[in-house]
């Protein structure tokens, strides 16, 4: 327990340095913006009264519109390129899964890490390799500490784990909002740019510092505007209204 307290103390210092205010915690808590677990956890967080530990929210979140995604996988290639200097879909921390024979809009899913308020991956890690970045709140992996147990991979609550098992280097990795992108001439991270967002040809990925609502559909947003409708694609949330019909109605 002493270690836990120590960790909590360190985290409080780190959070203070990062400028996280009590108000942000409370606001986030209301919107499931912070992870809340009972005391005794080993991961980095704030110690609140009654042995409740809160984890700082991430400074940012990737939002995707799978109904706008064209399925080119350029985001995936950009991810592996900027992080690893190679082209690989398997190393990408964002995954686009599609079935060419399935009807739109169920034909594609864009699977990105949600930077969960309550990150099960962080909680599962026995070595603190999977941790909350003290500067940005991003849930990320210190590969040097990873022992390859894959607990974090399996702990991810989504049916396709957002924690990627790097079979080449044999460690876990996940979206860090491009904080660590040594093969990129841009500054990544929550305060910088995200490679997938930058490169998407149709603007199907965006970024927010506001904590999105958590739902089974993920951080899905509607990024389709009037220009998209002019091309001929639906812009209603469900993607079921032909813009030609919508135009006629108006």
């Amino acid at each position, binding site marked *: 327990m002493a270690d836990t307290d120590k960790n909590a103390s360190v985290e409080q210092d780190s959070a203070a340095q990062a400028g996280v205010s009590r108000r942000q915690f409370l606001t986030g808590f209301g919107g499931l913006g912070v992870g809340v677990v009972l005391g005794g956890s080993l991961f980095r967080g704030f110690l609140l009264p009654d042995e409740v530990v809160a984890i700082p929210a991430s400074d940012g979140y990737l939002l995707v519109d799978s109904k706008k995604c064209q399925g080119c996988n350029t985001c995936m*290639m950009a991810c592996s390129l900027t992080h690893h200097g*190679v082209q690989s879909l398997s190393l990408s921390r964002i995954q686009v899964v599609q079935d060419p*024979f*399935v009807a*739109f809009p169920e034909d594609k899913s864009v699977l990105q890490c949600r930077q969960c308020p309550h990150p099960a991956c962080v909680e599962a890690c026995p070595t603190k390799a999977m941790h909350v970045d003290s500067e940005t709140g991003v849930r990320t992996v210190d590969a040097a500490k990873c022992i390859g147990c894959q607990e974090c991979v399996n702990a991810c609550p989504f049916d396709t784990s957002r924690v990627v098992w790097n079979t080449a280097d044999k460690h876990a990795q996940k979206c860090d909002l491009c904080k660590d992108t040594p093969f990129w001439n841009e500054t990544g991270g929550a305060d910088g740019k995200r490679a997938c967002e930058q*490169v998407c*040809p149709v603007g199907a990925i965006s970024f927010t510092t506001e904590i999105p609502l958590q739902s089974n559909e993920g951080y899905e947003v509607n990024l389709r505007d009037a220009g998209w409708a002019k091309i001929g694609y639906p812009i209603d949330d469900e993607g079921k209204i032909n813009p030609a019909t919508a135009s006629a109605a108006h």
Partner: protein
Amino acid sequence: MAKDGYCGKILRLDLSARTHSVIDTEKYREWGGGHGMGSAIFWDLVEDKTVSWDDPKNIVTLMTSPMSGTMVPSASGRVEVQGIGASGYPVRWFTRSNFGGRFGGQLKYAGWDGIVIEGQADAPVWVDIVNGDVQFRDAADLWGKDTQETQRSIWSLKDEEAHGWTNIGTSRDAGRTTQKPAVITIGSAGENRSSLGCLVHDAGNAAGQGGFGAVWGAKNLKAISVVGTGMIEVADPAGLFSARMLAKDEYAVAPGQQAAPNGPSIGKDAKPTLFYKRKTEVTMGPQACQGCINGCRPRWSDGLANESSCQETGVYTTFDALKHGAHTDASVIATDLVQRYGVNSYELSLGLKYLYALNQMGVLGPGLEIDVDLDFSNIGETEFAVDFITKVANREGIGEDVAEGFVRAAEKWGRLEADWASGVLDFPYWGYANHGYDPRSEVEWGYSSIMGERDMNEHGFNAHMWGVIYHMGAGLDVPVSAERYAEIVTSKMVPYEGDLSMVDYGTHNIYSESMAKLVVWQRHYTRFWKQSALYCDFRWPDLANFSAADNVGMTGDGEPLFWNAVTGDDMTFAEGIELGRRIWNLDNAIWVLQGRHRDMVKFAPYIYDKPVETSVVGPFYPLAGTVDGEWTYINALGRSHDRDGVEQWKTHFYNLEGWDAATGWPTRETLEDMNLAGVADALDAAGKLGGA
């Protein structure tokens, strides 16, 4: 791991022995990739270049480029297919096709730069590639399945769950992926060895021209599936990303927005090209090949004809509209069916119009001189389309008649001479269907086709015709004058840059040396940059681009920028074109060994004897040209070719290539200049060396 874009290994499949071996990519590195490597491999492995398309000794190559599977815009997803095809008249040439999607990327991630297929299996097989593991599998259960059923069946063997990470092999660290295996397969048209048979991948990627579906059918090869979990090393990762952003920011339309009316170029938006207007009850979403800067295909809310775009969506629209006064689901179902059966929609579409014309002439139909079991009173209805396409795919009735192509069918029916004279049989070059960009109007399309071996299907110069039409149709001024267009385009055409007459489509200029330069440049540019480096035809070359600030596209700067970022080479645009010249010469040498001679290189008779009256959009075909020395957009309709004029143009072409003008055969001097002395020796031994 692939280094600098190359995996280092080419997979060689011997279907007869059901074994595989490895070809060292380095042996063919000098050819760049794609078509260049395919031609060189064919040259080396097929001793008798006159071998029949269905002979086990014929090989088929599926080649990627170092840029396949990388984020080079609109160059990541193409695969070049080559071999002696089942299509063509009077000779079935060594030919090529090409398909998009994600097969090339998966092949590279699996560790292979390409596949060489030789031999003939004694029973139907499919080939299962999982990274470095290659298995020949029994395809008895797949034979007879359509292309969609086949792919689903293969996926069901590998990935029973719709989502999730799939472990490759039994080792924890052998590899993981969320991606379905990429499968290229034939449908019943290919199984039945119809020359209309295609190779189909996913829902809407097909290698149609050349009849490679039939070649696979003859080899008893149903499908190849590949999944890869590896990686491709690139020489300059940061440079590659920056180059991609340059293309996006400076040459592409703002993300998700409607573009200025461009023809095929980087400046196009993500709108599919659809020949049918679908009912408003359905919606569509975008779909792109791997790495595309803006895709060109849709997936639909009813799942019909997913990923179909451009010509295949027009396979039945004419008759549907004639019957119903509008497009109905008949057009969509016909399109869906050609994808499922793997039928060449171009050949089918023009062929059906020919059959209909014969029916209207009282020649072809039930009980008529050409007695076929097609109820033409029902043409335009779904039932007719299903009946016709099914018969073609299964070689039943009319399907058997046209299985070797419509030109050969006409010859068999004793109608070739008459129907080629009248133009009813609109197949102007080497037995291939008119692409719609008629050789009498858009002369470079026709010239490139007869100097090659098939309908060339390259939209680089055709793009501007569409750009002009789109603007005019929208009531907008064309952003650039004809003269400015000529300046933009010809400034990029090294080594002939600056000769504006190269794109002067005025009738007075169509037999000139300048027009021959245009075609020479096109043959060399496309052979390397488009068919070997595998830049997609629908986005490259990027000549005039109305989404770019100054209307000047990325071509010239873009192609080598990406190539060098991936490979670490220091190739110039001109050096790429020169490599294209070398590849083009190797192709021509193969054709010469197959029997090519200058005297054979000609259009079908109607191209000389009948003026072209309409274009794909009606009574107007706008092309840049001069009238009395002034640049304008001319209407290139109303003219036919002059036989002597075409012969004059051919002489210019042969002289520019350094080939013997009397025979069209390459000379030793020209070949040795390109370090192709061995090719010259082979031609010499065959008595077919030009100028000898």
